[in-house]
């Protein structure tokens, strides 16, 4: 019972008669749309019109709506329009569709391209301000909560903090070690390759040592942590926000900052210096390995040169930066997480923003520290 539908029309003395036959169902949707569009063109100057339904084998909402649309077309033209010989069991469906689509849809007008570019620019500017405010607000919230925890240390969620420390510190260790080791190898290899032309092989060790301890170690680790753990924080908090878990916490009298954010940020602040320390070691080790295998410098000489070239100051410069970078990553990740709205798309957007923004801020912070250390002579 799957008959090709048809809509036959006859005009007799001021009356337009359509006869619908076959299956008026979604299986024939494209053919039906064509039939009814063609039928609508015939609705012209007759006094009345009718659709004979006796030949309809099957009817579903799509078919019913298309027939109803044809009837409405006739009525718009001021004609008497109705169904004839309507089988009883189709009546209630046609009654259903008679009630729908009564209000004309208001289509939003397309906007001028120039205006919408301006509109975008304006929204971005305002959004930038909102970004800064969100960051500052989260920072303030965090400080107040930390102060409260200092007064009432029992409110600190120790177990949760340790759990996050395990995730962002211990579990990140292998990949951080691998990447920093490779970076150390690459720097040393490039150093030997280019410095050899000037006979300055010995200075490769100075370069590797200072670069790794002061800048690269902490920067690489911070960028990796932003991508690995910052994004996880944003996605976790964002999906908790989406599913109203954060609202639930709040109504039970818990402070989401205290319960969710303080342990996460503190875990990062503890983990990043540790990761930086071991990451730097791995980079120096990689540099030494390349010096030995590629540069022909024995490990004893490498270590002796390293001892001369670097001082505790270089090490301190790198390590001092680490907790601050962790703070920036944590605050950005959490504030972006809490800004997630209801949709999956907004979760993705916020996670991307979180990573991009924290990497950007980490690099800016590094620059600020460079100026600071230079001016105090470290």
């Amino acid at each position, binding site marked *: 019972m799957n008959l090709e539908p048809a809509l036959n029309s006859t005009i007799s003395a001021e009356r337009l008669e359509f006869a619908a036959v076959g299956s008026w*169902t*979604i299986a024939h*949707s*494209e053919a039906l*749309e064509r039939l009814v569009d063609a039928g609508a063109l015939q609705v012209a100057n007759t006094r009345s019109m009718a659709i004979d339904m006796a030949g309809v084998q099957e*009817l*579903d*909402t*799509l078919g019913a*709506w*298309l027939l109803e*649309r044809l009837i409405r077309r006739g009525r718009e033209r001021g004609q008497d329009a109705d169904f004839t010989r309507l089988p009883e*069991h*189709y009546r*209630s*469906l046609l009654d*259903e*569709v008679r*009630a*729908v*689509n009564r*209000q004309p*849809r208001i289509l939003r007008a397309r906007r001028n391209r120039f205006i919408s570019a301006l509109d975008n620019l304006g929204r971005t500017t305002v959004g930038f301000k909102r970004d800064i405010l969100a960051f500052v607000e989260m920072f303030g919230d965090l400080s107040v909560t930390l102060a409260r925890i200092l007064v009432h240390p029992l409110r600190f969620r120790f177990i949760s903090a340790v759990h996050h420390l395990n995730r962002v510190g211990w579990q990140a260790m292998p990949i951080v070690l691998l990447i920093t080791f490779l970076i150390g190898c690459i720097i040393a290899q490039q150093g030997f390759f280019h410095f050899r032309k000037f006979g300055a092989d010995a200075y490769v060790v100075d370069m590797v040592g200072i670069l790794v301890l002061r800048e690269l170690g902490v920067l690489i680790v911070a960028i990796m942590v932003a991508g690995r753990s910052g994004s996880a924080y944003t996605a976790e908090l964002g999906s908790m926000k*989406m599913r109203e878990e954060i609202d639930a916490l709040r109504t039970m009298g818990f402070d989401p900052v205290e319960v969710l954010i303080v342990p996460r940020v503190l875990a990062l602040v503890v983990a990043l210096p540790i990761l930086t320390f071991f990451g730097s070691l791995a980079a120096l080790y990689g540099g030494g390995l390349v010096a030995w295998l590629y540069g022909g410098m024995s490990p004893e000489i490498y270590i002796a040169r390293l001892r001369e070239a670097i001082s505790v100051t270089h090490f301190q410069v790198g390590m001092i930066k680490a907790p601050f970078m962790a703070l920036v990553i944590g605050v950005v990740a959490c504030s972006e997480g809490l800004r997630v*709205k*209801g*949709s*999956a*798309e*907004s979760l993705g957007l916020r996670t991307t923003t979180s990573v991009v923004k924290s990497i950007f801020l980490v690099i800016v912070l590094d620059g600020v520290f460079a100026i600071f250390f230079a001016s105090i002579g470290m």
Partner: protein
Amino acid sequence: MDSSSEPMAIRVRDLVVGFGDQVVLDHLSLDVRRGEIMGLVGASGGGKSVLLRTIIGLLPKRAGSIEVLGIGLDRTSPHNAPTIGRRWGVLFQQGALFSSLTARQNVQFPMRENLHLSDKLLDELATAKLEMVGLTDEDGDKFPAELSGGMTKRVGLARALALDPEIVFLDEPTSGLDPIAAGAFDTLIKTLQRTLGLTVFMVTHDLQSLHMVCDRTAALADGKIVAVGPIGALLASDHPWVKSYFQGERGRALTHPLN
């Protein structure tokens, strides 16, 4: 009754489903005839959603067979999954709307993917479906996060009905609706069943729905269907769980409204 003489919409035989050590459905068998509205009742956490999700192929089964519209779902390869997907519509318990699409786009999504119709007709059809389930045209422009629980259910139903399917699976469709809306919903389901010959498999706790629209009701307890039949037969059943379900305070209020 002889099951071979009557076309079955859903045939479940000896179905076993479990998670780890927990066996949720234990050799369950159930038939749903074409064109009937079958209600499923059972305790919360008793496995109603699990049964529904197994029938539509979202959960793996440990044993047994499932046929939907005469197609054994064991043999469905991903290749014919789209074909069967066009023939059924599903309303999930939590709505499961696509969160980055508006209500209207949610309803249009299956149509856009499967049919080649003009945008104008797609818009009209989406509005028609939304209005049929009791929403307004303006609601269509809202995103799922902006809808109330009951509205989410209705959009979910409109989406399940988008392709005028042969079977719809509804998981607690009227929970979260006010009584008037639930009544309108029941009327709509009944109308669609009469005109389209729609088969409906619905999980519900709404005793009113069971009375008003379901042709038959199945009771799920201890992982099995313990009673099937018109609601009158279930009320007379002497299975202890079925008895306590319908003869409890709330059940009695409906069956003996004046007591």
